């Protein structure tokens, strides 16, 4: 070592400094070329790893293992999807059935409400006006009239825009006329009836029927057909005190 330090160009450091000198020789060209190859290969490898995914340099067995794992994961995810879809379908079915049942119940409630007088009603029918100047028409006459209307298929009946006539509606004679369902009514009695207009008209005017009966009492009956009768007054239902549904 001591000898090397004294002699020029014998230590590693001196040789390294000389190597950075400007001289050109065959050996240096070869070294430069080989280092260029090294740099090229290294950068190509680094870029291959960068651009492609992490699998670019992986070997076949690793890839196969990886693929198997992925396939298993995908199978289990697929079965999860199937389960969840089945569950979604069954929930959707249940909800469809439920909403269908609700719709049906609502329709039924509407239909029953019209019949029970708890819902407003509209439709074709007739307007029957009984004029009774002498105050001779009794509850019996009006009851007959209602019975004729019902026989003819009346579905909703309203008197004088005040009283909705239902099964419970009572007719009672009073001083000034007739009380229907507890409401005092006087002449003229206007019946708005929803039902088949032809049948209703016939039922009101057949010989010996309502018209003749009222005319005998010095009154008049006017029958007018209408395609659009609106019945707005409602019957307020009461909870039955004695009767309860029998199964």
């Amino acid at each position, binding site marked *: 070592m001591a000898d090397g330090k004294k002699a020029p160009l*014998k*230590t*590693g*450091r001196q*040789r*390294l400094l000389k*190597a*950075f*000198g*400007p001289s*050109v020789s*065959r*050996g*240096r*060209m*070869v*070294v*430069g*070329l*080989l*280092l*260029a*190859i*090294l*740099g*090229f*290969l*290294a*950068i*190509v*490898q680094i*870029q*291959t790893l960068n651009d492609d995914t992490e699998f*670019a*340099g992986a*070997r*076949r*067995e*690793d890839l196969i293992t990886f693929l198997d794992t992925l396939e298993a994961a995908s199978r289990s995810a697929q079965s999860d999807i199937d389960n969840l879809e089945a569950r979604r379908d069954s929930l959707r079915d249940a909800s469809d059935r439920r909403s269908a049942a609700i719709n049906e119940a609502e329709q039924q409630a509407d239909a029953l409400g019209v019949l029970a007088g708890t819902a407003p009603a509209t439709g074709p029918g007739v307007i029957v006006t009984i004029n009774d100047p002498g105050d001779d028409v009794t509850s019996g006459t009006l009851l007959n009239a209602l019975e004729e209307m019902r026989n003819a298929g009346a579905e909703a009946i309203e008197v004088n825009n005040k009283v909705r006539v239902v099964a419970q509606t009572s007719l009672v004679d009073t001083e000034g006329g007739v009380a229907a369902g507890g409401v005092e009514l006087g002449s003229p009695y206007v019946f708005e009836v929803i039902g088949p207009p032809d049948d209703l008209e016939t039922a009101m005017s057949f010989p010996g029927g309502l018209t003749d009966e009222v005319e005998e009492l010095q009154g008049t009956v006017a029958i007018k057909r209408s395609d659009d009768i609106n019945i707005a007054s409602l019957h307020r239902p009461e909870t039955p005190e004695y009767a309860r549904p029998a199964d």
Partner: protein
Amino acid sequence: MIAALGLLLGVVVGLLVQPEVPLGLQPYLPIAVVAALDAVFGGLRAYLDGIFDDKVFTVSFFSNVLIAMIIVYLGDQLGVGNQLSTGVIVVLGIRIFSNVAAIRRHILHA
């Protein structure tokens, strides 16, 4: 000087060209790079020892790369490619460390 310029040139060419590595060569490229690195450090050490010879360096460079790749290829054929490539990397790494240690002693005298 020329060596450093050569290294820089190789890097620049690699960045500009961006070649596609053939699929069959992909597992061997990293091994080749490490083997070449080992040859370069060996050459530097020989240079500092004053026994550098460009023919020896060239032959050792290419034979290192070739043998490393052949060993890994053989390992792949035998089904132990992973283990053999790890082994080759370990051996080359040890050689690189010992060469760098010798270089360090030359330059830093420590």
